[in-house]
């Protein structure tokens, strides 16, 4: 492209940006209420809160605007809102309900009292209220991918453009595609789908495949249970991903791209669809982008729920209308992918890193994280941790910092037991392994994997055999059936684990499990099978004593495996006057004895845990016993 054309592209973008900035500035001239309405917010009740704000604002005739934003990452405090009023710092409030919404309108918007007692954090530095960086979590967090998430309206492209969005694309269109590729290569950006393959090398392979039709695919088939980073990003800031895909398409010479999104994520599909429409209207997508000679069309393909389709070759097959069964590689997708043409397939997060790298430079990106793993890691932090949510920390942060500082440790004062990282392909790491830094290579050495970023915290009440069984059940069901070891080996492993959790484990089971695990790992074509034994292998490595307790003592140390526990009401603690447990029992197994104390008929008990939950904290008379044999001992004492 010659100098004049490049200048015309820049000029056209400058006008877009100026218009967007002016429009957004006008919005923020008055009070603005931003309501977090990603799926997590909606589930916690964000929609009634939003309606309540709208109702009260209208009743009082206020000029306040109400805007939908995505997920800020602080999911534990949902529903969240941010209220900006000229003259005050923007304040974020959590745990909203309709009454608090009405009160905030009255006290803050009308009477200038920001109700600091309900505020969580201020967005801009100020003299009256702490900001994100004043919290332990803010010290560790550094946001690149999630930078705009939760602060901008994903349904209005101007919010993104006003923050400099699509600027990287405009600048890149003035350069040769080779220059764009070089920048990505120099940045050492590693693919965030799990394997950590350098994105630049993947793109280069597609360039080297020669001229002709090529495709760019964004993998948003996030299937791991307990992971929702990609969903959060697409629902909160879809344009950043679109811009990254366009930069990739420009670098490799593709004119068509696809978002492969799970059909289970209807809101993400809707928001990406809207984002694509708006980008098209602004001339940022379609023919002659920003008046340059670059054409690119992006479309959505809805995946239909098969975990194995996260694997590149299976994903492409499913786009071709076939069963998602992985194929042997080579040829790599970059040589022969969708419709037999060179295809670049990257994860949502990988694409989202690309625009910031162009905006702030390769050196800036490499200054974050470690030498071999530049940048940040995005995790969905869930399970038994106080502050669940989406977090982004530099690579090299330790798991301990992530769980105990950012997530503030296990909830309810329970003892930490393990961190399950990487979903069904990952592993469970005990407390002793928490000081390893988070990066692709260190985690693999410890037996887990980075995966796409699911991190489930487990506490003392979680049985490691049961969790290993849960993940294996998942992979066993999701195995496509192509490789014998993955199809049958996982089934055998699952059978053994099921037997162990049911108290029918035998000596020698653990050795067979280990042997099978190796066979499954070596005998599977794709990573679904090759990593399926990881949850079993890591729990065997770090928590072997729990397996042995199940097998040799028929005891579940975490009191979780149903067949190995019984419920028991302690007579010395039971209040004769309270009938809560009797009413809560779904099978009428609890009865009142002649002396007024309650007791459980073990024949009828279905171990639903209801009596234990409903017994008032003053008594806490219901306990679980393992092994079940302890019951005779207890009852013997009583008689």
């Amino acid at each position, binding site marked *: 492209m010659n100098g004049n054309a490049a200048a015309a592209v820049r000029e056209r973008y400058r006008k877009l940006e100026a218009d967007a900035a002016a429009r957004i500035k006008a919005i923020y001239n008055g009070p603005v209420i931003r309501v977090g309405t990603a799926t997590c917010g909606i589930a916690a009740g964000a929609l009634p809160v939003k309606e309540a704000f709208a109702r009260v604002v209208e009743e009082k005739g206020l000029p306040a605007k109400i805007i939908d934003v995505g997920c800020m990452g602080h999911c534990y405090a949902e529903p969240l809102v941010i209220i900006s009023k000229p003259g005050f710092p923007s304040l974020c409030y959590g745990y909203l309900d309709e009454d608090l919404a009405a009160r905030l309108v009255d006290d803050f918007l009308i009477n200038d009292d920001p109700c600091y007692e309900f505020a969580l954090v201020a967005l801009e530095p100020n003299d009256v209220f702490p900001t994100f960086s004043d919290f332990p979590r803010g010290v560790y967090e550094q946001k690149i991918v999630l930078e705009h998430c939760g602060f901008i309206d994903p349904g209005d492209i101007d919010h993104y453009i006003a923050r400099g969005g699509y600027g990287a694309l405009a600048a890149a269109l003035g350069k040769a595609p080779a220059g764009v590729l070089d920048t990505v290569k120099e940045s050492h950006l590693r693919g965030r789908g799990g394997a950590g393959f350098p994105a630049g090398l993947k793109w280069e392979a597609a360039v080297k495949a020669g001229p002709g039709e090529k495709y760019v695919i964004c993998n948003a088939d996030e299937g791991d249970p307990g992971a929702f980073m990609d969903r959060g990003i697409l629902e909160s800031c879809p344009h950043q991903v679109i811009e990254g895909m366009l930069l990739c398409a420009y670098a490799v010479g593709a004119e068509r791209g696809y978002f492969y999104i799970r*059909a289970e994520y209807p809101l993400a599909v809707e928001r990406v669809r809207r984002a694509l429409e708006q980008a098209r209207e602004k001339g940022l997508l379609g023919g002659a982008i920003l008046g340059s000679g670059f054409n690119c069309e992006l479309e959505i393909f809805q995946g239909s729920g098969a975990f194995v389709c996260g694997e590149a070759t299976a994903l492409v097959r499913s786009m071709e209308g076939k069963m998602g069964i992985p194929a042997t590689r080579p040829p790599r997708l970059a040589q022969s992918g969708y419709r037999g043409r060179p295809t670049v397939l990257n994860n949502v997060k990988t694409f989202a890193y690309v625009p910031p790298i162009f905006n702030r430079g390769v050196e800036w990106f490499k200054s974050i994280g470690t030498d071999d793993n530049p940048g940040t890691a995005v995790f969905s932090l869930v399970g038994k941790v106080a502050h669940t949510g989406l977090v982004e920390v530099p690579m090299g942060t330790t798991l301990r910092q992530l769980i105990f500082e950012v997530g503030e440790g296990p909830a309810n004062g329970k003892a930490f037991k393990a961190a399950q990282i990487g979903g069904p392909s990952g592993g469970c790491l005990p407390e002793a392994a928490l000081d390893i830094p988070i990066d692709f290579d260190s985690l693999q050495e410890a037996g887990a994997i980075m995966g796409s970023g699911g991190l489930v915290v*487990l506490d003392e009440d979680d049985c490691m055999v049961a969790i290993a069984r849960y993940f294996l059940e998942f992979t066993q069901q999701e195995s496509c059936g192509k490789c014998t070891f993955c199809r049958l080996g996982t089934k055998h492993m699952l059978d053994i684990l099921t037997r162990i959790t049911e108290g029918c484990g035998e000596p020698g089971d653990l050795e067979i499990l280990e042997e099978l695990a190796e066979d499954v790992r070596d005998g599977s074509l794709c990573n679904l099978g090759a990593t399926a034994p990881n949850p079993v292998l890591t729990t065997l490595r770090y928590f072997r004593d729990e397996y042995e307790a199940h097998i040799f003592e028929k005891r579940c140390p975490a009191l979780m495996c149903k067949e190995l526990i019984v419920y028991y009401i302690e007579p010395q603690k039971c209040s004769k006057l309270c009938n809560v447990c009797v009413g809560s029992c779904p099978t009428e197994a609890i009865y009142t004895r002649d002396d007024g104390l309650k007791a459980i008929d073990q024949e009828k008990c279905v171990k639903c845990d209801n009596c234990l939950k409903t017994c008032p904290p003053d008594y806490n008379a219901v306990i679980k016993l393992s092994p079940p044999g302890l019951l005779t001992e207890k009852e013997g004492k009583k008689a």
Partner: protein
Amino acid sequence: MPSIHVKRGVFLPLLEGEEELIRKSVSGVLQEYEAAQENLIPILLQVQEMLGYLPGPAMEQIAAALKIPAVDVYGLATFYNQFRLHPPGKHQLKVCMGTACYMVGGRIALECFERRLGIKEGETTPGREFSLERVACVGCCTMAPVVVVDEQVEGKVTPTRVDGILLSFEKPAAPGAEAAGQKGEDAS
């Protein structure tokens, strides 16, 4: 009667006039797409959106239109979790089986529904009143265990809450049950 059998037993019998509805809906969807295998998943998704599930005759009709064997369509429909071969009930119960829900009693909730309704997960009660499914993580891990009742997310579902949910459908006058009761009246 459909000739394709599903994993658990056979299809529930079609309702009166349903076959005609299926034929019409599928024809409508097929007109929007080029008859290529590449469009099979989008076609199936759209048919399911219209009918609520993929009945046997629909799969046969699609196979004929795309000139591929019916077993290929059936293979695809059973390969992907998104497709359902049972008609949805008037009320759809989806029990979350994400990691967090599983660890704190999602399975207990599922078992309670199975016991109360007399069906297994993936099935529909004979009167098409309730359908019961397990779903992967719905992303509400903080409220585990979670059950999605129709479109409403219910958090912290204990066995007593299971009874409560089912009871609320028995008495349409009970608060909160009205909207759910009115919805999908014409399904039967």
